[in-house]
């Protein structure tokens, strides 16, 4: 599903070079549940951004579902991202002026799905994530756990193959965090490939496999 070969991503900070990713080779099969762990600045987010095609490699190769991402142009990359990838962020990133349902529909709106189909798809994920009675609330009327569930609903409404979660429970209390974990793991059980960055060793241990990072390298 996901293949990185000698992947490097270097940042220029002033005169210094910082290795976000340093010669990473990685294979992730479809349907895997992977946690990514490592100290701050070790390159976990950079790895997710590369996999999510928000960022591009300086050298090396990235193959997503058989497609050589590097060689695609910008709009094809956007399309691939739209079709295959769902993002969940630590800080939710919901648009405050839209209702939960409108936030969830946003990827479909961007993809040009028409209104009827959109409403149907949104209704399905809203029901699946137990958000039915919150669908017409705005983010500021929702609890943190509910916000993250709305964000997850938005990430999966396009039925992506890969779900990338960067510290999804980082802003949540324990109970809400567990609730969100259950939602993510249920999605994985239904077949989605789940990559989750976390600082919490207990959460990381729940995954089938853990990728440990340090200074941009994946530790064996």
């Amino acid at each position: 599903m996901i293949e990185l070969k000698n992947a490097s991503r270097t940042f220029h900070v002033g005169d210094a070079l910082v290795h976000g990713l340093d010669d990473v080779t990685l294979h992730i099969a479809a349907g895997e549940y992977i946690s990514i762990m490592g100290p701050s600045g070790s390159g976990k987010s950079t790895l997710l951004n590369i996999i999510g095609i928000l960022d591009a490699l300086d050298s090396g190769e990235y193959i997503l579902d058989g497609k050589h991402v590097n060689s695609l142009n910008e709009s094809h990359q956007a399309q691939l991202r739209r079709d295959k990838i769902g993002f969940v962020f630590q800080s939710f990133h919901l648009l405050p002026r839209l209702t939960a349902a409108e936030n969830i529909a946003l990827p479909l709106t961007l993809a040009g799905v028409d209104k009827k189909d959109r409403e149907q798809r949104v209704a399905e994920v809203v029901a699946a994530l137990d958000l039915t009675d919150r669908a017409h609330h705005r983010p500021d009327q929702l609890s943190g756990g509910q916000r993250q569930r709305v964000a997850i609903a938005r990430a999966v409404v396009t039925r992506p193959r890969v779900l990338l979660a960067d510290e999804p429970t980082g802003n949540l209390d324990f109970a809400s965090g567990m609730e969100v974990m259950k939602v993510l793991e249920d999605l994985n059980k239904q077949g989605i490939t789940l990559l989750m960055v976390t600082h919490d060793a207990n959460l990381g241990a729940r995954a089938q496999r853990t990728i440990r990072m340090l200074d941009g390298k994946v530790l064996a």
Partner: protein
Amino acid sequence: MKITDIIHFVMQALSGYRTRTFLLLLAMAIGVASVVLLTSLGEGARLYVTQQFSSLGTNLLIVLPGKNETTGGAPPMMGAVPRDITLDDARALQRNSYVRRLAPLIVGSAPVSWQSYEREVTILGSTADLYGVRQLSLSQGQFLPPLEMDRAAPVCVLGYTLADELFRSHRVLGEWVRVNQYRCRVIGVLGDEGMSLGTDMGDVLIMPVASAQALFNAQSLFRILIEVTQAEAMERTQKFVIATLRERHDGEEDVTVISQDALLATFDRILGALTYTLGGIAAISLLVAGIMIMNVMLVAVAQRTSEIGLLKALGAARHQILMLFLAESALLSLLGAMIGLALGFLGNWVLQQYFPDFPFTAPVWALWAAIIMALMSGLIFGLMPAKRAANLNPVVALNG
């Protein structure tokens, strides 16, 4: 992304930032409203003058002393003193079959009094034909009697306001008024004519041309007004007038004949240019509004970086982000233009209540120009911020 979805999304963004949206709409609306108002003013002036000229009567030729090189302008101010135009000249012109009516005209000013009331008034000396040529109307009595041109008679017709001020509620007809050392009997009062070509026809006293000659002790005519039988004969008659007077003035071409059409065309040109100029000045405010849109959109892009990053993470391509932000400034300027049109029409309506005689009408081209310019400035000035948004690095944007 579907066009209706783009509009919906942009409208939500616009209503999410109310103050900003309100200020931009206001700026654009003021720009468009000023285009509407200023061009209405110019166009109104043009229509007003046109109306004034048409109220003079159709197929009108005006003969004045002095040769003017360019047709349709004012008589020359300098140069050789031209030969006077006389009543005999006027009579000679009357013999042409294309001349339907002809009115010699003397203009002067003299004190007019009745009992203890006295005031300085414009005196017009003419003939019975003036009534038809200038398309006058009467509110009481009758106009000058059809006399031979050189026959004086102690009768006069008063303008509406003059009659009102001299006589108040007193009976007017048959009364004798004093004009300088002469006396004349009032036989008629004009209708409420208003202004006509700079002369307040409410404030005149009209007497037979020969009487006016005696009053001012002058033989020369100020103008001869000629009404031609049909439009096709205008040019021919004009040539006839010039030829006849040249012959009578020892071969010297020392009169100017202007047609009402030529005058009208000149004023039309001048005032049309005025309208464009005013419209152009107003368009500057549209430009200012456009620059405001650019500024505010740049701020908006800075404020909404994380939103832009998110949209990219959700699969929006560069061109979609560009489109969304362009649509935002285009919609802003279009909405502003609509409000501006409404404000402009409202302003026109209010002005119309205060100046009922002046036609405040925005020319159609100005309305289109205002809308298109507003849209263009929204798009052009919106392009830079939209490009900036589209080019944002999504990773940085999401963290920012």
